[in-house]
Every structure is written in structure tokens, then in C-alpha cells.
């Protein structure tokens, strides 16, 4: 008997949720009032709801099917798992996307799939959904498609014409990890596919000699995800790998997904999940590299085992390890150095630089910039304020460490 739409949705959303990406920002501007049809895109991205796991719900994130010929240990949909299986038709996904969109539940669609029959067959199905949405229904909302490794270049090229974003997951921070957990996937093949997509994206941005623009290819860029805490890779390994991915394939985002217990787990997996705070620390470190001007190896330089502290955020940990550089004078320090002060973000730094051209800054002024004076005070000086030299305090770590808590028994 065929499953109901509600059952299929339940199974295929459950199967898709371990993909962390939900971005709907940073693509070309589109607008149905100008172009006709339904939908718009190109703004800052909108999160239409939040689940009790704290994650934003921006896109309808589903699989076309959770049948899969692969047997990757970390994946809920691996062929040896006993999860319930279901399959959407292309028409199902098109209908769901449009009806959800009309009610303003979502920004668009994030469609992925288990691999059935062959890579090309699966990719063809994904492309058909996007083609139907764009050409038949003139849908202008956001589309994120997963690209299937080994799919033929023609299909990837067509996918990029309709999709705002393409992604392939590298899955594991290291090649050894991938070989151990996903023996049927090849790191080289995944890298090759990301390199091809980068080439197509770059080509879509270049004008020809005649000034003509080629058709845009995935204007929202490409992203990837790696699972953290399933294998032995350290945070240093993860960050090094991410930096290589950002630089080598010019990715918009690398997502870190703390390995989460899944139903009917494979015996290869660790029994306990890593603390969620580890994932959080990795994102903070990722931010430091992308927005604060840190190099990835600086962040873990002072840490012997390469694991970020779970108690302190990595920017604070870096400042404590380099305390000789502080305090910085708020009225004279450079932008680059101010960005390294724990508690100062890019917006606050920008506002400080603008304000100090007109006024002398006092520490109290920071509250008006929505900065926590308590956090920042030990690291800065200003008119009327100079902190105790940090280097002089040996109890420094305890000033910042969280209060001791009862540990969980399990």
C-alpha cells in the first residue's frame, strides 16, 4: 500500500534533518512582480520558524527518497539500516514546495536524495524537480540541490542553472575517516566534483570579451558539511580541513554537524555523542577565521592536543594565551587588533573606529555599542580606565571559567 503524503513527508524530512545547512541568503535578486510567477529571493535570508533544537527552518529540507545503495556508517539512510523507507515523486515535491511557499512557511527547497539505481539517475530526478519549479511554475524562491558524486557533468551544469546553491558533503574531516566510515565513497571523487562546481561558478561570473554574461551558475555558491565527533579527528584537523576547503573551492560555508545518535545506529559508531558545545566552538573558530582575521593555525597553536576548550570560547582562549598583547588602547589600537579583543565584534569595532574620529572613547561608552563592558574591560584601556596588567594575575583562567557544575552520571 502506498504511504500517505503525511507519512512520506514525515519519513523523508526525518531522513534529511542531519544536514545542517539552511541558508537562503546571498543569491541573485529575483522578484515575481517584475519576472512573473511566484516568489522572490536575494535578500538576507529568512528563518520562518525555529525547532526546539534551536535550528532555524528556512527551507523545506527533504530527501526525494531515503533508499540508498551506499552503506555509510554515520548515515541514518545507509542500506543496512532498518529505518522506514519512502519515496516522493517529482510532482509530490513540486506541489509541497509551492503550497508551503504560498503560506509563507518557507523560503524554498533544499532537496537531497539517497542514491538509487545510479548517480546519474538520482541526479536526473533532482534536476527534474528544479526544472519543473523554475520553468513550468516560474518559481522564484530559493533552491538548494545536493549534487551527487560521479553524476555526469551535463546534469551538474543543468542543476546549476536552476539552483541557487549546490553542495556536496565531504562527510569526514579526514580521508582516513571517510575510508573508515564510508568505504564506497572516495574523497578524490568528492573533491573533483567540488572543483568542477567551482569552475562552473567562476565561469558564470566572467563576462566574455564581448561583454556578454554567460548564464548564471549557482549564484548562491557551494557549501559542504563534515560530521564531527564520529571519528578521531581533532579540532585542529577539522579547522585545517575547513581552511583548505574554503581556499581551494571558494566555499560559502563549511557546516559542522556534531555526530548525533541516530536510530538503528551502526556498530562502528561511538556510543556517546560528542558534546554539542564542541560543534559550537568549531563554529566560533570558523567565524574567527572568516570575519576576525585569524589564521586557522593561530587558533589551535597554543593547544597541545589540538582540541578547543569546551569551557572558554576560542577567541577568549586565544587572548589569554597571548595576554602580553593586551590591554589595547581603544583610542589608538588598529582595526585588526581591536577585532581580537574578546567581546568586540566587527560591528562594534566599526562603530568605535567611526566614533573615535570625533570623540575620545571611555570604557562606559561601550554599553551604547551593545558591548558587554564586563567582558571587554580586562583587555582594553581608555580614558579613565586601565586594567590590572593581565600578565600579573595568575588566577586569570578562573576569572572566565564557568562555575563548576554537577557532571552528568552517564
Amino acid at each position: 500500500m502506498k504511504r500517505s503524503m503525511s507519512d512520506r513527508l514525515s519519513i523523508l524530512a526525518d531522513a534529511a534533518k542531519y544536514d545542517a545547512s539552511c541558508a537562503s541568503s546571498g543569491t541573485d535578486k529575483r522578484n515575481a512582480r517584475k519576472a512573473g510567477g511566484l516568489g522572490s529571493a536575494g535578500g538576507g535570508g529568512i528563518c520562518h520558524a525555529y525547532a526546539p533544537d534551536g535550528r532555524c527552518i528556512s527551507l523545506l529540507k527533504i530527501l526525494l527518497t531515503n533508499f540508498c545503495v551506499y552503506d555509510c556508517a554515520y548515515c541514518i539512510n545507509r542500506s543496512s539500516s532498518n529505518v522506514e523507507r519512502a519515496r516522493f515523486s517529482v510532482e509530490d515535491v513540486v506541489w509541497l514546495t509551492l503550497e508551503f511557499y504560498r503560506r509563507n512557511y518557507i523560503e524554498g527547497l533544499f532537496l537531497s536524495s539517497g542514491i538509487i539505481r545510479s548517480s546519474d539517475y538520482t541526479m536526473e530526478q533532482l534536476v527534474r524537480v528544479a526544472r519543473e519549479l523554475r520553468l513550468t511554475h516560474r518559481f522564484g524562491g530559493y533552491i538548494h540541490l545536493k549534487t551527487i558524486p560521479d553524476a555526469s557533468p551535463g546534469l551538474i551544469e543543468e542543476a546549476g542553472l536552476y539552483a541557487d546553491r549546490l553542495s556536496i558533503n565531504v562527510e569526514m574531516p579526514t580521508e582516513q575517516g571517510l575510508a573508515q566510515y564510508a568505504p564506497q565513497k572516495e574523497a578524490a571523487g568528492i573533491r573533483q566534483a567540488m572543483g568542477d562546481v567551482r569552475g562552473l561558478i567562476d565561469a558564470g561570473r566572467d563576462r566574455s570579451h564581448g561583454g556578454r554574461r554567460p548564464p548564471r551558475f549557482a549564484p548562491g555558491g557551494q557549501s559542504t558539511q563534515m560530521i564531527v565527533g564520529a571519528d578521531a579527528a581533532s579540532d585542529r584537523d577539522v579547522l585545517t580541513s575547513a581552511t583548505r576547503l574554503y581556499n581551494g573551492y571558494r566555499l560559502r560555508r563549511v557546516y559542522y554537524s556534531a555526530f548525533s545518535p541516530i536510530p538503528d545506529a551502526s556498530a562502528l559508531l561511538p556510543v556517546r555523542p560528542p558534546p554539542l558545545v564542541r560543534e559550537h566552538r568549531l563554529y566560533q573558530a570558523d567565524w574567527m577565521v572568516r570575519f576576525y582575521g585569524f589564521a586557522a593555525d593561530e587558533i589551535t597553536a597554543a593547544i597541545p592536543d589540538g582540541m578547543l576548550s569546551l569551557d572558554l570560547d576560542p577567541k577568549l582562549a586565544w587572548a589569554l594565551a597571548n595576554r602580553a598583547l593586551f590591554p589595547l588602547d581603544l583610542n589608538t589600537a588598529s582595526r585588526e587588533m581591536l577585532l581580537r579583543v574578546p567581546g568586540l565584534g566587527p560591528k562594534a569595532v566599526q562603530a568605535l573606529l567611526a566614533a573615535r574620529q570625533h570623540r575620545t572613547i571611555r570604557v562606559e561608552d561601550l554599553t551604547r555599542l551593545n558591548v558587554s563592558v564586563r567582558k571587554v574591560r580586562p583587555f582594553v584601556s581608555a580614558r579613565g580606565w586601565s586594567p590590572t596588567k593581565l600578565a600579573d594575575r595568575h588566577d586569570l583562567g578562573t576569572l572566565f571559567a564557568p562555575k563548576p557544575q554537577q557532571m552528568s552520571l552517564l
Partner: protein
Amino acid sequence: MTRFRARVSADGDSACWRTLARRALRAGIAPERLDWIEDGKDDDLFPVDAPWPEEDPARAPVLSRAALTLIETALCHSDPVRHDLAYRLVWRLQDEAGLLAVSTDADVARLRRMAQAVRRDSHKMTAFVRFREQPGCNGRRRFCAWFEPDHHILRRVAPFFANRFTDMDWLIATPRGSIAWDGETLDVRSGAFTRPELADDLDQLWRTYYGATFNPARVKIQAMKSEMPRKYWRNLPETNDIPALLAGADARVRRMAAQQAAPAPAFHHSLRKRLPRVPEDRD
């Protein structure tokens, strides 16, 4: 010292404020001598408004585009001090041209915070409006929504909805007014609506999705609430399920942990026979 009065509409429309602010600057009325009074918020202490001084044609008030944009945004705030604050800032800007860059100044900081609150409210409206389908006519589909904004943002957000939901008719009703679209005209009106009872069959499917995409192994209630505050919940169909999802989360995680690796399904074994690259069965 004579005090003067400026009367402005209460719905976040900046045109009236601009006209009066320009006149007051030309008349040289210092901000501490000018009371801004919203329509309907009159007190009867001084029933007769003092006439304003003559305008001085030699005074030419200046305001940069950036300052105007910031002020117009902040004027959508519902705080009744907004007109006064905006006028004081414009008054000061005439002598201190770089003032807007001084985010540490009390007036600038407050105006920026108000503008920020207006932008956030507008953003949340684009996120949390839920259209419910109504019987259509003339072949066009028709939807209704109810939303409760904190500030006077209807004019700001109306184009977003028209640019997106172009091929359907819709009405968004709020306690501060309404926005309507019929495929040609975008109609923004003030005047309070009362909350209607709206329903849509699709809501149930959306709630199914909401429950299925939630990962019970990572409960982060604070993160959810800071982005989706409680005040929005009563108009979001999916939030009805939050208590049940949270109550069942622990049990679901325990069930996952207890689940023994059962024998693989039959198709797994037949797949392995077909795919030469798969290494020997590890089970």
C-alpha cells in the same frame, strides 16, 4: 519661556514629521521648547497652541540621505518619544555634521536602537506571517493572514509581500491596519482589525514537517525562544506542537540508544552482491 507644539499622525508616517521639523528648524525653535503630540494623545492643559515664530528664509536646514533613512526607520517605532528624539538629533546635526558617526552619543545610540528594533520587527513579520487559504474568485487563489507587529511597519514591509506573492490575492490584517494585494494594487491602510479565526488544511502537513525536522537529541529551548519569542507563538500553527515534542524528546533519544543493531534488510544483501566495490560484510 513659550513652549510650542507640533501635531503628528501616530502611524509611523514620516511625511508629516518632516514638514513640521523643517518649519521648526527655519523658525529656530530649540528642541527643548517643542512638544510633539500624536493624534489622539492630546492633553487639555493648554487648549490653545502658541503660534510659531516667523520662519527665517536664510536658514536652510540640511540633512544627509543616510541621516534621513535612519530617522525615517526610527520614526516607525511605537515609542512616543521618537518624534522628539528625531527632532533633537536633526537640530544637533545642523552644527555637528559628523554626529551620526558617534554611536557612543546617547541620542545617536538611542535612535539607532529604535531603528534596529523596527528592522527586526519588519524582518520577523516577513518570517512569521502565515497565509491561510480562503475560497477564491475569478480563478485567482485568495489568502488571509493575521499578524501582530510591535511597531508601525506595514508600509515598510508591504512591498516584500507584493514582490513575492504576486500571483495570488491576499490580505494581512493587524491591530495597526492592513495590507492587501489583488495582483495590481498594493493597498496599505491604518485602522485596527480584530483577530479573526483562520484555518488552512495545509497547516497539519506543515506541523508534520516541523515535528519531523526537529532533532530530539539536541534540545536547545533558549536558542529557539531568542529567535522566535513567545509573543509570536499564538499565531504560528506549528508552535502548538512544541510542548509535546519536548516532552517526548528524552524517550525518543533513549529508544534510539537502546535500539540494537538488527539484521540488515534483505535489499542490503542483494545490493552487496551486485556492487563489486563493496568490501566484505562487516556484520
